[in-house]
């Protein structure tokens, strides 16, 4: 309880000290077209004014990494009346999309309050009663889609085993040996999109939503990630924000540099950035 209270106080202080109003607002400009906006190289991004977002190491709750690598994101936002999209760019000299024990993946996330018109939740993944929608893009998922899900031979080309359960047993009997895959853990299973649509009410409460609406795509070239995260502005998902032209809300960001062993709470984050949905 004490941790929760101090977190809430700290969040308020951070919000006040960093000055959400001092941060240049991010405007999602109206663009032509319909359907999801997923291409980082699409021409629509030229219509949006980029906003620089300073990234801070998460140092409130353990585990922590005080020397996070990504110091700044460049963010653009657009919408086409049906979908709102964010283009997030940052410098990252190391492509990290292959995950083994001591390799971590590049990731970026956009956070939106569930209720854009209500009290602003804690920028640190929300708070009890202050639910947020967190859409997290993962380089490993992007690689799964483009190259294929991780295999033993792919990760360890010289690995060899006598026999595997699915060579001895029926699929049903071999299922327990698939571990989290057999339970359809969203981190493990094959994904249709590189973005996980999640919700949270504070640290440790991140939950993958039953309805997955967010989409996205990332490209890494010349040491720069360009990642698009997009979601429907209105849906029947009770755990998604409802965004309409003219709305004023906030957006939060987090980024993980896998090459710097950043994962989970070891991340760089940004306090709320004012977000305007253009008319």
């Amino acid at each position, binding site marked *: 309880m004490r941790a929760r209270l101090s977190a809430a106080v700290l969040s308020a202080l951070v919000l006040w000290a960093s000055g959400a109003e001092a941060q240049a607002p991010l405007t999602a400009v109206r663009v032509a077209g319909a359907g999801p906006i997923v291409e980082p190289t699409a021409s629509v991004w030229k219509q949006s004014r980029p906003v620089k977002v300073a990234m801070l190491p998460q*140092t409130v*709750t*353990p*585990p*922590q*990494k*005080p*020397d996070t690598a990504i110091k700044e994101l460049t963010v653009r936002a657009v919408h086409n009346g049906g979908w709102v999209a964010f283009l997030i760019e940052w410098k990252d000299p190391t492509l990290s999309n292959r*995950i*083994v*024990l*001591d*390799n971590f993946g590049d990731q970026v996330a956009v956070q939106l309050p569930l209720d854009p018109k209500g009290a602003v939740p804690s920028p640190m993944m929300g708070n009890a009663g202050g639910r947020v929608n967190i859409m997290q893009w993962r380089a*490993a998922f992007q690689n799964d889609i483009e190259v294929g*899900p*991780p*295999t*033993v031979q792919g*990760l*360890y080309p010289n*690995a060899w*085993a006598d*026999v*595997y*359960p*699915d060579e001895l047993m029926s699929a049903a009997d*071999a299922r327990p*040996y*698939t*571990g*989290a*895959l057999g*339970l*359809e*853990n969203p*981190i*493990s299973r094959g994904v249709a999109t590189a973005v996980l649509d999640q919700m949270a009410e504070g*640290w*440790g409460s*991140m939950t993958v939503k039953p309805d997955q609406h967010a989409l996205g795509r990332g490209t890494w070239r010349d040491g720069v990630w360009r990642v698009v995260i997009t979601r429907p502005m209105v849906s029947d998902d009770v755990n998604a924000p409802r965004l309409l032209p003219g709305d004023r809300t906030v957006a939060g960001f987090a980024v993980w540099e896998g090459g710097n*062993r950043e*994962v*989970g*709470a*070891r991340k760089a984050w940004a306090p709320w950035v004012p977000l305007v949905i253009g008319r």
Partner: protein
Amino acid sequence: MPQVYNWQLGRTMEYPYEERHPKSQFAFVFNTNRCIACQTCTMACKSTWTFGKGQEAMWWNNVETKPYGGYPQFWDIKALKLLDDAHQKAGATMGWETGKPGPSKPYGEYSGMTLFEAARQRYGPEGHQRVLGYLPTDEEWRFPNIYEDTSTAYQGGRLGISAEGASLPEHKSWFFYLQRLCNHCTYPACLAACPRKAIYKRPEDGIVLIDQERCRGYRACVEACPYKKPMYRPTTRVSEKCVACYPRIEGTDPLSEGVPMETRCMASCVGKIRMQGLVKTNPDGSWVEDRQHPLYYMVKIEKVALPLYPQFGTEPNGYYIPPRWVPRPYLRQMFGPGVDEAIDKYTAPSRELLAVMQLFRTTQKMLSRYEITQGPKVYETTVNGKPWAMYNDTVIGYDARGREAVRVTVEEPVHVRPAQYANSI
């Protein structure tokens, strides 16, 4: 941070969660003196739980040759060094005050910092964490049996022949086998470190499990566990660990007739070094007095079996009868200050201890109670200058329902094959 009582340290200590203890606790005693490192336990576990894709380098049970072997490599040396560095940084010293042992502090009182307390200095190779720890490299898990049978440097003559031979209490060149699995700790470091509360300790038997649906593969548990028993599975992108063969513990294995059964690694032990069971626990975490429970007797009454690296602070529930021939400072570092008493007790076992030790690996059923029927004296000698006698007592082990599960004598029965069958097969 909440204060919890750790009886192995004889004091309260900091832990991220309030004390709450299971009704009974999965525990085991290993006799390191008897292990031959045949790895039958290792393969029993492997062929039961970890032969799926992505688990190739995963050995929930392993046997390593000490002092050099380790899975992952140098896990204990690295954890000890982190703890030592933290003490040096704080100007503190690790030590034990052994002057006033008692039921709540059988080994005295640990005066150093645990891994939880050392973590509060916000020190650690991976950044600040709830538990001081490190993440091994992927490569460090690749050679589970590295340094097998490698002894410390030979200190004999030029031709490799020692004029004196080897004798107790300390061999000049030595190694021993350390058998390891998850200790299902009373205060698990893995559980403390998980930011998602994906790890839980079962209220019925204290088994520590990783929820495979909730885990997100942050590897905080792998980093935090000083024994390095949570392991990362790259094909599922989450961590896994020893499940203590829970269907057997629950008595739901068809072979068990509804009573708790020992895990696969225990039941397969060729060297008869292992005994595993469930000990009843009080709400405050202390063990319910259970004089005739073989584990209670060996750990609490005889104190012949000791926890592995108690100074880490997790209150591990695996207990080891230390190897007699290894230098005592090394053993005291590994098993705490109870080492000398434990070796004395093992070297010249009491009549009761000798009988109880016959129960190791005599049945797959977990034993909840034992009784001894006295037999005749069969042997007399002196041990360390003191008279010692052996009696051919009979020890009877009972299962969880109080049914006789096994009956053995101290002297193994001898069967002489009749002459006409001398060459029969």
